[in-house]
């Protein structure tokens, strides 16, 4: 055992001396591994970034809110069965709330009607297109997770009265009021003036697909007055205890059937959606991105490994006489095998560490340049990369090291 340790430390010294004396060659060979590790690490970072971004986006939907709508939140093959369903009406919320109030120990807290449409929003000469205009009641604030940058949400009085007030998203405020505060200013939506009472702080985007900051929220009566055409309603129902989500969902389904007046033999003609359902739809997509990405970047690491194998073969060839001398002095096969394995591993480890440093710097720069880009550099990733480079070294160095250890000492000594 002690002898093995001495041989190990001796091999390390040789490996380091070897790398030093062949600086150019070692650097070029390590470059293959560096590129490989940078690629794999960045891909890993991006994947865990997607995961983080995904979770963040999911959190916006709240894990204690059920969404009653016409369409389910997943891809359906029989879309025609959903197309002809009766529209969801905002009035359902009142019925639901009455029934919730009458049910003892209900799992449901409150139902909030919402209705949405896309319109452009104007202020003076500035205009933002495709803004989500959402009409709802003042209790909407209970179901959402956002904070206010400035101002407040509209109150119950404004909500019931259908006052021309609005709460605007971060992007809308940024576009229309680049330097001034939007509070108490009037914006034009569909030609109608609405006074701004609050600005929602930045929410980011949902998986980078659509911005959650391009939104204007107004009282439902006002919405119904101006934007009924082509609007789509959705009822948000907050659950009392999120651990009993399934019970709550069943209860809500029963209430909705009652509201719709469905006889027992008919199927549900509405969909109750939740964050979890969205997750199970998107997870396979996320996973296939991860697998494909890692496979492609893994190829670059593989090319790096071939470089290491090649250079180790060259090294064995060049030092055939040295191998012969070492054998004459009493080096066993295992000793020679170990020596070359350590050399290839040291080279890979060096490449891995440099690659990791590069990847870390790049992540940092990306993080500074695009703060919204979901990038996540974890210590687990560092550990995995180091492990991967060591494994690469061992695997790519094995064939040359094995051939070195099997050399016949007489032939090796005679080699010029």
């Amino acid at each position, binding site marked *: 055992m*002690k*002898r093995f340790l*001495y*041989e190990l430390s*001796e091999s390390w010294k040789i490996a380091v*001396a*070897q790398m030093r*004396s062949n600086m150019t060659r070692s650097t070029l060979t390590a470059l293959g591994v560096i590129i490989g590790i940078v690629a794999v690490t960045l891909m890993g970072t991006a994947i865990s970034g997607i995961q983080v971004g995904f979770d963040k986006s999911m959190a916006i939907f709240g894990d204690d809110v059920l969404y009653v709508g016409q369409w389910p939140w997943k891809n359906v093959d029989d879309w025609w069965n959903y197309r002809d369903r009766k529209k969801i009406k905002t009035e359902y919320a009142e019925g639901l709330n009455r029934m919730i109030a009458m049910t003892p120990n209900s799992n449901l807290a409150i139902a909030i009607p919402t209705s949405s449409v896309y319109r452009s929003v104007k202020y003076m000469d500035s205009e933002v297109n495709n803004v989500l205009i959402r009409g709802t009641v003042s209790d909407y604030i209970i179901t959402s997770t956002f904070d206010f940058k400035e101002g407040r949400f509209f109150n119950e009085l404004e909500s019931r009265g259908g006052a021309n007030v609005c709460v605007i998203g971060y992007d809308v405020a940024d576009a229309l009021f680049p330097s001034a505060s939007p509070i108490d200013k009037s914006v034009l939506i569909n030609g109608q003036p609405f006074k701004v009472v609050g600005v929602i702080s930045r929410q980011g985007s949902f998986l980078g697909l659509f911005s959650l900051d391009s939104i204007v929220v107004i009282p439902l009566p006002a919405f119904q007055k101006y934007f009924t055409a082509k609007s789509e309603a959705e009822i948000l129902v907050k659950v009392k205890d999120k651990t009993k989500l399934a019970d709550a969902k069943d209860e809500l389904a029963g209430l909705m059937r009652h509201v719709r007046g469905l006889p027992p033999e008919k199927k549900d003609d509405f969909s109750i959606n939740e964050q979890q359902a969205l997750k199970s739809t998107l997870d396979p997509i996320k996973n296939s991105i991860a697998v494909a990405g890692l496979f492609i970047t893994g190829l670059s690491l593989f090319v790096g490994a071939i470089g290491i194998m090649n250079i180790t073969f060259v090294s064995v060839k060049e030092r055939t*006489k*040295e191998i*012969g*001398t*070492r*054998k*004459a*002095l*009493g*080096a*066993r*096969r*295992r*000793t020679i095998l170990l020596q070359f394995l350590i050399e290839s591993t040291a080279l890979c480890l060096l490449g891995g560490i440099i690659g990791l440093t590069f990847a870390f710097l790049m992540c940092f720069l990306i993080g500074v340049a695009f703060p919204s880009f979901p990038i996540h550099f974890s210590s687990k990733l560092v550990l995995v990369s180091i492990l991967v480079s060591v494994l690469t070294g061992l695997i790519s160095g094995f064939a040359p090291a094995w051939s070195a250890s099997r050399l*016949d*000492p*007489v032939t090796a*000594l005679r080699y010029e």
Partner: protein
Amino acid sequence: MMDTRDSIRPVGPVVIDIENITKDYVMGEEIVHALRGVSLRVHRNEYIAIMGPSGSGKSTLMNMVGCLDTPTSGRYGFNGRNVAEMDDDELAAIRNREIGFVFQTFNLLPRANTLRNVELPLIYAGVDPETREERATQTLIDVGLGDRLHHKPNELSGGQRQRVAIARALVNRPSIILADEPTGNLDSKTGEEIMSLFEDLYRRGNTIILVTHEADIARHARRTVRLRDGLIESDDLMTVPELESMALT
């Protein structure tokens, strides 16, 4: 051979006992009989020169004696153990502990300093770092290189390099020192210095086997074995008058 003339007969225990060994090589479609039945017995503290023209089997015999190769047939006893039946690791252990190699081309590790070169056999023997440095330093002092411990081989002269190689051969206190044309790459003056170092080592009780084709070099040995066509042609001990003339020089 062992005639009545006065000569110094070896008296120590037998270190090498080679009995009728042969070695065949396959070269292309031909079988080369490098050794055709050689027997050789070497006692402790002998000083032998093995001579012969190229192709005589001299190198093959040296490889056998040095446990770098195993014979096709015959028996090779080393300190009473049969080498012909040993596996690679056992042979490596014998080479490490029992044999000190000195090569014509020195074969030092170019990037390691003198001390580290000499420590190498001790590393393979599993000696701890402190003892290693102590013994390597002492051996280097013994060969007259006490002031060159941290020089790299390319900072040393040819004679100094061969001294490092000799120190490396000695450091594990082997049973025999096996030198293959040790002066072949040196000028004659440096060669003589190296030969007097061998003489010194011999007088201190070491067993030396010298492989050479130069009669001048072989003359330093006490016994000369001549090979021709894979067989021993002659095996002569130095006579007393020869010894006396040697003592005068």
